């Protein structure tokens, strides 16, 4: 549980090598945080990231654990393992895959993998975390969604569909969790310049992992349930999602 001055004691990052996820942790880890766990596919990359976090605070113990981000059936066991050392105060879910260009190509397994990582397994993880935190009586889950959840684009239909699924699920789950002490912060970034988007055409209002973290970190300690990064996207997408399909398709954003 958080200590008396509000510092979380145990922070977990799922998708432990995600640039946005690590930028958020960079802002959350401060003296007083007892333990950080990076849960990722690639232990070596995770260890490298852990090394950077260890530099922030001497008394913070940083550990790396392995998981398969596409395996929904394993999420409950992953959460039990991570929580075996004690309560989790803040869980950041940053696991995700993005296709190059047309991500609806069949046959390559991309459809199944993207839906599994971004939607099904993330939903299973949300359920497992929510159950565990409900038993603790407190906890905050930060879920990286995307503005792609709000308005589909023809250039990445599967990605948009996977984010729409998990976004919708998380909002409903957060509603259900009201009054339990547990809550979800849904983060909807726009186009983020990172290794995930290298080589892709930049969209308007593009941002960086650090800028996303600057929006997310204060929101973690608030009672907000949704934030956009940059913040202006909440207005932009309030308009976009209500545009008639005919108008939206003519915009040079697809």
């Amino acid at each position, binding site marked *: *549980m958080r*200590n*008396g*001055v*509000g*510092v979380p*004691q145990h922070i977990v990052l799922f998708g432990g090598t995600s640039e946005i996820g690590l930028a958020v942790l960079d802002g959350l880890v*401060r*003296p*007083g945080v*007892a333990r950080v766990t990076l849960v990722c596919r690639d232990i070596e990359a995770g260890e490298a990231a852990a090394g950077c976090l260890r530099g922030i*605070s*001497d*008394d913070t113990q940083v550990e790396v654990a392995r998981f398969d981000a596409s395996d929904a059936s394993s999420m409950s066991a992953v959460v039990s393992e991570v929580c075996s*050392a*004690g*309560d989790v105060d803040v869980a950041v879910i940053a696991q995700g895959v993005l296709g190059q260009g047309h991500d609806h190509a069949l046959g390559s397994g991309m459809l199944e993998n993207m839906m599994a990582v971004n939607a099904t397994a993330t939903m299973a993880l949300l359920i497992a975390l929510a159950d565990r935190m409900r038993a603790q009586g407190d906890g905050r889950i930060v879920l990286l969604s995307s503005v792609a959840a709000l308005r589909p684009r023809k250039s990445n239909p599967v990605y948009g569909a996977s984010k729409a699924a998990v976004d919708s699920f998380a909002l409903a789950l957060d509603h259900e969790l009201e009054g339990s002490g547990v809550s979800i912060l849904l983060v909807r970034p726009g186009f983020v310049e990172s290794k995930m988007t290298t080589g892709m055409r930049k969209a308007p209002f593009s941002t960086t992992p650090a800028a996303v973290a600057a929006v997310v970190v204060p929101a973690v300690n608030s009672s907000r349930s949704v934030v956009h990064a940059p913040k202006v996207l909440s207005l932009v997408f309030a308009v976009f999602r209500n545009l008639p399909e005919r108008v939206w398709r003519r915009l040079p954003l697809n």
Partner: protein
Amino acid sequence: MLLMPDAPLGREFSLDRTTGTVVCPAGMSLDEVLKRTVPLGWFVPVTPGTRFVTVGGAIASDVHGKNHHVDGSFGDHVRSMRVMLSTGEVVTLAPNARPDWFWATVGGMGLTGVILDAEFSMIPVSSSRMRVETERLPGFDAVVSAMSPGSDDGYRYSVAWVDLLATGRSTGRGVLTRGDHAAGSEVSAKDPLSYDPKVMLAAPSWVPSGLLNKASIRVFNEAWYRKAPARRHVGLESIPAFFHPLDGVRRWNHLYGRGGFIQYQLIVPLAETDVLRRVIGTFAGRGVASFLAVLKRMGPQNPAPMSFPTEGWTLTLDMAAATRGLPELLSTVDAMVLDAGGRHYLAKDSHVSPVAVRRGYPRFGEWQRTRAEMDPAGRWNSDLARRLGLLDRAR
């Protein structure tokens, strides 16, 4: 889950009027004990800054008071106690009957079992008044020298209020109060033992958040310091005024506003006055508004592995929890305290890390093993234990 009957399980209150031994249920507060015993000429051996603590809590936290340098902590006065283990078995523990279990329960933060009742010795008094010497001291050195071994031993009770906002040459200035129970002959009242603690004031619930801020506390501290006599002054005070001043203000915690407050108590070994000076200087330099900062010299440690008091200097602070930069500041001070071989008081703690407990309490592992013997199924738990991993095996 464990179900406990809500009827008291302990023996009923009794006072042996010749030996001054009390037997009472663990759920009885020191307030209740004092109301029964002071008119008969007996006072509790140790009282913390509030009388609204239970006897069981006083044992589980091994509380101390202004007389620690002379009389030790509460656990030192317990003759025996009955404890219900997590199996439901009731055991009688005493310093000479299962001493390891007895001392693991003293200061054991309630994690060894449920204390049902206790037998402890009181101290005789012939009045309900305190003879108190008050003097103000202009800086850290003056405070420390007045409270050092040799100059302070003649007083049963001794504590200094410290102005944590004073800086420069005034850093660490304070008001030292020392005293003892007044003899019946010193008191003019018809019945020198009459005892009537009243709750005097109530902080209104609409107090705006931040009423206790740096500016208002600076004003208060200046006034409090100036109000104290520059030369030593001797007077009579009531028991509540001397021991339990905040109990006189109902809902005093509301003064900290909606953000609440935290308590922080540290101790450093006797020789580490330089560290103590740096700690006080750190708080003063950062302008942390502490309404209540208290310094006391503690006497030797008792056999309880998790008992907080040990020979040294203890500093207690109350601070608004919303103070900017507080987590970083407290982490800095934590490191100074631990590096000097000091530690933190778990009864008040809401901040330190699991590592700090292990460094500060060198006999922590021994206590864990004894605790596991008393609760092999690992049924007891608490928020403190979860946060600090007190029940974890390997860490």
